[in-house]
């Protein structure tokens, strides 16, 4: 995208960094600056509100469960379009913020082809060409971009459905739902991957930092870019060190046991080590 967007993003990032802060501890890397985190949670909150209020209207089986959350049916109907606009607005800025890192590359095509090994956890380390975002994250981002456009167009048509032609409302109704379901599928996976599936990921959106181990495991190419070191080499080194530490510890344990045995006088009925 044009450099004016980059300049705008840079300005916003600087401004937000003045009010908020990101503390990067030893052995950690900065992943998401304050501006990105604020945008992410603005999008998340407005999306969840839109999702719940929308689901109330979506299905008769959910109406009685979800409409009371927003103060009843009429209030749900009134709020939903505004939640949606809020979501689209927040996501627009996130779109500008992430347009560059979300650029689709050959590495992402490869990632999508190997999604099976990602899901089955067969490989402990992500492919070495996985950058700041992997193919799955980019796919989710672009699904949201398309969905957000559909949400906006069909949503406005349904908002003013007493003046919009009948067939247009009927078509919008279906497209709005499909966009929501597509995004919901990604949303479920997104929450899972961000919490239970990958320990250490959630803090990237709260503290803004990740550990170096996390970085070379999940996003090696990004690790190489920010540290200037080889992720595989660093990983091997860490592993070697861990093994050595274990050996040293075992040796120490054995030494201690031996010393205890010698120091203690041999008496009948003593504990056999």
């Amino acid at each position, binding site marked *: 995208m044009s450099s004016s967007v980059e300049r705008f993003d840079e300005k916003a990032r600087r401004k937000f960094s003045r009010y908020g802060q990101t503390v990067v501890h030893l052995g950690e890397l900065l992943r998401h600056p304050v501006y990105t985190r604020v945008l992410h949670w603005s999008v998340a909150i407005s999306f969840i509100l839109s999702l719940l209020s929308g689901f109330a*209207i*979506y*299905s*008769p*089986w*959910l*109406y*009685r469960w979800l409409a009371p959350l927003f103060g009843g*049916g*009429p209030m*749900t*109907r*009134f709020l939903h379009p505004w939640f949606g606009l809020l979501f689209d607005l927040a996501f627009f800025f996130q779109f500008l913020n992430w347009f560059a890192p979300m650029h689709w590359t050959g590495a992402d095509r490869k990632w999508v082809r190997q999604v099976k090994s990602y*899901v*089955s*956890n067969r490989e*402990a*380390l992500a492919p070495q060409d996985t950058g700041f975002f992997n193919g799955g994250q980019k796919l989710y981002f672009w699904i949201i971009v398309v969905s957000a456009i559909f949400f906006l167009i069909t949503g406005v048509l*349904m908002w003013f*459905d*007493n003046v*919009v032609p*009948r*067939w247009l*409302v*009927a*078509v919008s*109704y*279906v497209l709005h*739902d499909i966009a929501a*379901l597509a995004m*919901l*599928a990604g949303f*479920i*996976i997104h929450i*899972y991957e961000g919490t*239970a*599936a*990958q*320990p*250490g990921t959630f803090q990237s959106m709260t503290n803004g930092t990740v*550990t170096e*181990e*996390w970085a*070379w*495991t*999940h996003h090696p190419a990004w690790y190489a870019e920010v540290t200037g070191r080889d992720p595989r080499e660093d*990983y091997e080194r*860490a*592993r070697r060190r*861990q093994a050595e*530490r*274990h050996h040293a*510890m075992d040796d120490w*344990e054995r030494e*201690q046991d031996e*010393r*205890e045995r010698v120091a203690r006088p041999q008496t009948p009925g003593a504990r056999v080590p």
Partner: protein
Amino acid sequence: MSEERTLQIQEISAHPGPVPGQGTQRAVEVCKYIDVTTCIGCKACEVACVEWNDHPFRETTFDNTYQTMPSTEWNYWNLIKFAEQERDGNMMWLMRKDQCMDCEDPGCLRACPADGAIIKYQNGIVDFQQDNCIGCGYCISGCPFDIPKFNPRTKKVFKCTLCSDRVGQGLEPACIKACPTGCLHFGTKEDMVQIANTRATQLKKESGFQNAGVYDPQSVGGTHVIYVLHDITKPEMYGGLPSNPVIPPSYTVWKWLAKPTGLLMAAFGIFAVFFHRVAVGPKVAQPEAEPVLTHQPDEAEAARKERP
């Protein structure tokens, strides 16, 4: 509109589960029969409707016809549509009383997402319950006859009730009572269809209207308001009466088949990620953290301190 439950409910909009009391009472299907050929356009029915429903008097719109306004409004439910047609070189004035058709398969009720905002009684009357209406306006796009109208001030939708309050008390609708020519009739659906057919046959035989017929569109399961038209093949010329009124499939197939499927898929997705965590486990940053020591750290520390 009516809150007193003198009529047994048959169908409720967006209502999961059975309808309370459905089928517990014996009820005949009612019907309003409108003989368009004998309407003189006096608008007595319009006035009777406004009077009975206590609607405020409102401005009319003049657009070079005798029609009161271009279409029905949220507080003007009964409108005679005036259309001029040429027949054998002469002008023929078509006057059709436009109001809710009370479809057997109501598009408004299918489209409605609010539990209990639209109900259909066992006698066939479709009624809006504004207390439950959320003002989304889906009924407007679900209706093939352009009848439900939005009140922008209260954000609720209104339409003709077929005087369900009167019918519930054994009275005929207000418009029927006011008609001076006898072109409006009210009774059971069976009777009305029979009278209408007789009239259509009479028009064919005695008045030379070869295409005369009864308008009771089966694409919406038949209606509880039926017309006799001079020309059943061209209902559009009577102020836009659709020849094949249909409910958009998005309110039938999509709402009752695809939507629940979508919900099931979402539920499946949640189960899938949950069981992925249970069965496959997390992706932990490598190398994984060291295993827990066999001795507690403070024990090890104590052992170290004991050393001479």
